[in-house]
């Protein structure tokens, strides 16, 4: 369904994307006519004050939410024409997510957490295990595969989450404040890991962050304010 774009080609294109929440008097224009193009292999940071629409934009990019107006093209697909199930398939095959709150399944081992996306790709148990072990090794947690999230530190949990996001070799990694719950040393660790994946595997990364130090790792910084893009550096 999706032709692979070569590195440097346009992968994501938002045109006039508007998101309106609520009805009548209480409407909020979370996004107000955004145009944004992201190329294959880029590392983009989204910055801006609270409530400026960063998460809304990221959720739309992640096909978890749909714009009220405007169009979203992912590779050669117009996302607004996809059904809910087709979006789920797009997510499972091409997108990886990292959340601020890690969102690992508790009482489930690190390995099984990393295997989770592969289950929905109907991969066999052996193949899943192999790929998940490799992904855990990539984030330096090979020895922690059998531990549950409650037995891991915050930094380790976020690394498990990174392994889960990347185990299926997605085209795009979407991260909403991935270092929001971590101290500066752990944050640096995570960022260096993301940079490495971006460079070595060519994975496109879109990251929301409040911290300029973290945004500095990205190729481009997109400034949001009141639902519009104020500046791109």
């Amino acid at each position, binding site marked *: 369904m999706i032709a692979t774009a070569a590195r440097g080609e346009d992968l994501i294109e938002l045109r006039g994307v508007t998101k309106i929440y609520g009805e009548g008097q209480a409407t909020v224009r979370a996004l107000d006519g955004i145009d944004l193009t992201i190329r294959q292999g880029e590392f983009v940071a989204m910055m801006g004050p609270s409530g400026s629409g960063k998460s809304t934009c990221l959720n739309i990019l992640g096909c*978890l939410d749909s714009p009220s107006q405007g169009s979203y093209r992912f590779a050669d697909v117009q996302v607004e024409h996809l059904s809910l199930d087709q979006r789920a398939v797009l997510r499972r095959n091409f997108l990886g997510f990292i959340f601020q709150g890690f969102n690992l399944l508790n009482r489930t081992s690190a390995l099984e957490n990393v295997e989770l996306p592969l289950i*929905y790709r109907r991969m066999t148990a052996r193949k899943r295990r192999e790929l998940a072990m490799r992904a855990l090794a990539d984030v330096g947690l090979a020895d922690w595969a059998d531990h549950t999230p409650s037995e891991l530190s915050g930094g380790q949990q976020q690394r498990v989450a990174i392994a889960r996001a990347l185990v299926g070799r997605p085209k795009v990694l979407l991260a909403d404040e991935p270092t929001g719950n971590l101290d500066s040393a752990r944050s640096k660790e995570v960022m260096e890991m993301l940079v490495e994946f971006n460079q070595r595997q060519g994975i496109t990364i879109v990251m929301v962050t409040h911290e300029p130090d973290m945004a500095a790792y990205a190729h481009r910084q997109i400034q949001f304010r009141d639902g519009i893009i104020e500046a791109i550096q």
Partner: protein
Amino acid sequence: MILWEIYLLAQRTILRNALRSSLTMLGIVIGVGAVIIMVTLGSGATVKVTQDISKLGSDILYVRPGLGPHGPGGVRAASKPFELADARAIENSVAGLRAVAPTADTAGQAILGSANRSTTISGVTNAYFTVQGWQLADGRFFNDAELKAGKSVCVLGQTVQKELFGTVSPIGKAMRVGKISFKVVGTLQSKGASTFGQDQDDVIVIPLRTFQRRIAGNTDVRNIIVSVEPGVSTQAVKTDIEGLMRERRMIKAGQDDDFHVRDMKEIIDTFTSTTTIMTALLSAVAGVSLLVGGIGIMNTMMVSVTERTREIGTRLAIGAMREEVLLQFLVEAVVLAAFGGILGILLGLGASVLGARLIGVPFIFKPGIVALAFFFSGAVGIAFGYLPAQKAAQLDPIEALRYE
């Protein structure tokens, strides 16, 4: 996700919350267990009754003074008892009979030395042994002289024999019934408990005349047992006997009978109607437990969906389709219910084995009802698990991910 993966996931979730899961299953366990016990013991009892009746012969009528068990006031004390002449009259004027056995009985003490036992003393003619299907274990029945003269001879049931004589052969020995000395001429083969739980072997049988003269001190006959020839309609014989007895007891037209002719069918009907009431009652209990069990499952699944909102959000975000989430929770509910069903089946069968032994009916394994109970519990899981599963599948991934 393939179904097997979903099943394993559900099983793991259920085992992880073992206590909650078992409490949730309880309703289903009780419901299914009740169904299994009810059907297994019910069919055991039916088989037992059928066996007993075919042993007794379904061609037997009991003629008694007073009203039947269905009449108002039960047996009427005022009803005139029968006499030997009534039995003779039946024998002589009703066609199609194999044997007519007048009997009378009372409770009495059997004594031998220091051993004694309260038992039933039955006064009978030899026809009694025929109509009731008694076989000799040892010795003989009564001879004509003993019957006519009312000699003090007796035939012992197994229970009385064992209690008084132990392993010693009682034939030819003397014993007492109350104050009167009797000579034992025979012993009966065991018949065990009756359909209604009475020990049929707890009896001393003596000639009717002896009973009337020496024990009762009257000429009353309590009971006339009539055995009908094979192929003859018991209904017709019953009508004949009723007509004859009305005539002999001078009951005017329009007046109610002061006696009652019961056939085995009526006795079976009484039994069956009791079983039917029990079955209906237990079915209601089973139905209510299954309903309560279903609601329990729904409740637990609702709580589970709420607790796992973030998990559901995560699954949806990483690419689960809504049907896959729906299926996951539905399968969990079904597995929960099916586990409950299996547990209920095992407990029900176990209880049935014990219960069958306790009430003396055969244990009859009915694979059909076991399969039905299993599928029904699965169906309860689907019916009551659908709503929570639907709720899980309809969650908005963004909100679910943010849920605290």
